[in-house]
C-alpha cells in the first residue's frame, strides 16, 4: 500500500470532482434537451439527436481532437476564453469537464428522452386543465414522473465519467494534480509494469462502480415504495 503515494488520493478526489461536476452539468443540459427531443414535432429533432449520439460511435480520440482544435488557443472557444484573460481550455479541468460532458451526453439524454416519451401528453394535459402553466407542470409533474429515467441517466453519466480515458489523455494532458484522473493512473501503472498497484486500483474502481450502482438502485426502490 505504501507505493500508493498521496498523488493517488489527490487523483481520486479529482476523479470524483470531475464526475460530480460533469453529472450535474449533464442533468442540467440533458433534461431540457431530452424534453425537447421527446416532445417537439420539428424535423430538427432527428438531426440534433444524431449529433448528440455521435460520441457513442466515434473513437474518443476523434472527439477529443476536434475539441482540442476548438478549445485550443487558436480555436474559437480559446479566443473567447482570452477575452476573460484565460489562454486556453485545453489541458485544464474545465476542458476536461467539457470533453466528459460531450462524450457522456448521449448516455444521459437517451434514457430521459425515453421516459418523457413514454409519459405521453396525458399527465401534462391534466395538469393544464388544473391551471398549471407549462413550466409549473414540467417541474411538478413531468420531472417527478421521470425520476427513474433521471436516475438511470445520472448513474450512467457518473459511471461513464469515472471511467473516461481517451478524452482525459487527449484534452487533459495527464497533468498530475490537475487533470490526472484514476483511469490515467491505472494506465501509467500498467505502462510501468506495476501490476500490484494496477490490480489494487482496478479492483477498487470496480468495487466503487458496483457500490454506486447498488446504492442508487436501492435509493430508487426505497423512494418509489414510499411514494406509492
Amino acid at each position, binding site marked *: 500500500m505504501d507505493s500508493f503515494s498521496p498523488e493517488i488520493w489527490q487523483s481520486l478526489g479529482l476523479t470524483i470532482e470531475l464526475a460530480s461536476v460533469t453529472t450535474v452539468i449533464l442533468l442540467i443540459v440533458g433534461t431540457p434537451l431530452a424534453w425537447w427531443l421527446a416532445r417537439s414535432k420539428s424535423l430538427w429533432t432527428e438531426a440534433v439527436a444524431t449529433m448528440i449520439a455521435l460520441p457513442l460511435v466515434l473513437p474518443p480520440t476523434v472527439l477529443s481532437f476536434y475539441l482540442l482544435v476548438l478549445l485550443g488557443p487558436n480555436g474559437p472557444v480559446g479566443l473567447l476564453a482570452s477575452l476573460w484573460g484565460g489562454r486556453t481550455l485545453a489541458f485544464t479541468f474545465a476542458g476536461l469537464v467539457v470533453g466528459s460532458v460531450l462524450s457522456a451526453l448521449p448516455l444521459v439524454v437517451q434514457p430521459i428522452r425515453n421516459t418523457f416519451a413514454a409519459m405521453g401528453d*396525458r399527465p401534462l394535459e*391534466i395538469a393544464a386543465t*388544473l*391551471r*398549471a402553466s*407549462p413550466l409549473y407542470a414540467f417541474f*411538478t409533474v413531468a420531472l417527478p414522473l421521470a425520476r427513474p429515467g433521471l436516475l438511470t441517466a445520472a448513474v450512467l453519466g457518473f459511471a461513464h465519467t469515472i471511467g473516461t480515458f481517451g478524452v482525459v489523455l487527449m484534452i487533459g494532458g495527464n497533468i498530475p494534480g490537475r487533470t490526472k484522473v484514476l483511469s490515467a493512473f491505472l494506465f501509467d501503472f500498467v505502462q510501468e509494469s506495476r501490476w500490484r498497484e494496477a490490480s489494487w486500483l482496478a479492483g477498487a474502481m470496480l468495487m466503487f462502480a458496483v457500490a454506486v450502482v447498488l446504492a442508487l438502485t436501492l435509493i430508487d426502490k426505497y423512494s418509489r415504495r414510499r*411514494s406509492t
Partner: protein
Amino acid sequence: MRTATPGRIEIALSGSIASFPLDTRFSVPAKGVAAIFGPPGCGKTAVARCIAGLERLPAGFCAIDGEVWQDKTTFRPPHLRPIGYVSQEASLFPHLSVRRNLLYGAPKPKPTPIAFDEVLELLDLAPLLDRSPSHLSGGERQRVAMGRALLSQPRLLVMDEPLGALDSCAKREILPFVERLPEKLALPMIYIGHDMAEIERFADHLVMMERGMVTAAGPLHVLQTDPALPLAASREAAISLDAVVSGYDGRYGLLILRLKGARLLVPAPPLAPGVHQRLRIAAYDVSVAREAPRAGSILNVFPARIRACLPLGAAEITLVLALGTGGSGTEILARITRFSFDSLGLKDGVDVFAQLKHVSLLSASEPPLQTIPASTPTADPGDRQATPRRETRSSAREASGIFLSLHSCRATHVT
C-alpha cells in the same frame, strides 16, 4: 366573428382532428347539466378536448357564459380556462397522495367558493386522503378526480364519460355522487356519455351527436318525446321529468307530485312540498285505454291525447301522449302492441286514458343514505391483491358511518 351571450355555453367547431371530421355547433344554457350523447367514436371526446383547449381547431368558437375562450383571434391555452375536466381514463398523479392530488389545482389563497371540506363531504373522500392513487379502486379514483376538478374552482365542469372505464357495480357506486354535484353546486356541467340510462337521471339539456355532427339539441324531455328522433322509438324509451312535490298522504305513504296535466301518487318517503323531484317513466310501464277504467289498481290514470305513433319492430308501437284533457300537458311515451293499437282503433289525435303502472323517483334532493354491511362485495376492477385490502376498505367505510345505497333509484310499482 361572434359575440358571446351571457348565460349560454356556445360551441361551434369545424375542421378535423387527426383526420376525423368535426362539424359541431350547439348552444346550451350555462346552468344545469347538458349531456352530449352519441355512439362511441362520434367525436364527443374531441368536443370536450376542444372546450378544454387541449385541441385547437383554427375555425373554432367557444364561449362560456359570456366569456370568449376561443374565436378567430383569441385562443386561451388550457391552463387559463376555468374548467374542471374529468376524463374516462384514470388521471390521478401517481407520485402524489390523494390529498396532494386534490389540492394540485386549488388556488393558494384559502377562502374559495368550493371549499375543501365541502368537497370531501360531497364525494366522501375523507377516508382516502392519505392514500396513494395506486391503492384506490376505479370508482374511488374517479371520485378523487372529480374532487380535484372541483377544487380548481372551475366555472364549467366537463365530464368526459367519467364512468366509462368502470364496471357496472362501480358505476352504481359512483353515480349517486355524480347526480349530487349539479344539485349541490351552482356549476354548469357538460356530461359526455353514450349510455342514456345515466344521462336521463340528471341531465337537463341534451345534445345528440353522430359522426362528428350534432343531430339534435334541446331540453332532455323534449328530445325524448320527439317522434323524429331515435330516442322515442328505441326499445329502452323513457322520459325524464322534474315534478314538484305538492303534498304527502301520510295514511297510505303516498307522495303527491304535480306535473303539467297530471297529479301523480307515488309510494315513497315524504319530501318537503315545493321540492323538485326527478321522475323517470319508461314507455313499457304506460298503457292506454279508450275509456276511463272504472275500477282498477293503477293509481295514476290520466286523460291524454295521442300525438304520434312510432312502430317498434313488427309487433309493437310506441305512442307519444300529451297528458291532460285536450292534450295540453306534459308529453310521455306509452308502449303497446300493434294488436291493441288496431283493435282499439287508435291513431294520431285520438283521446285516450294513459295508465302509469310504474314511476321511478331518481336523485331526490337528499339522496337516500344507507349503511351497507361490511361484507357487501364492492366494485374493484383495478384491485390486484384481493382479499386483505378489500377488508380494510370496507371497514374504512363502516368507520365513515355512511355509505350510499347501491340502489339510490327508488323504483316503485303502483298496481
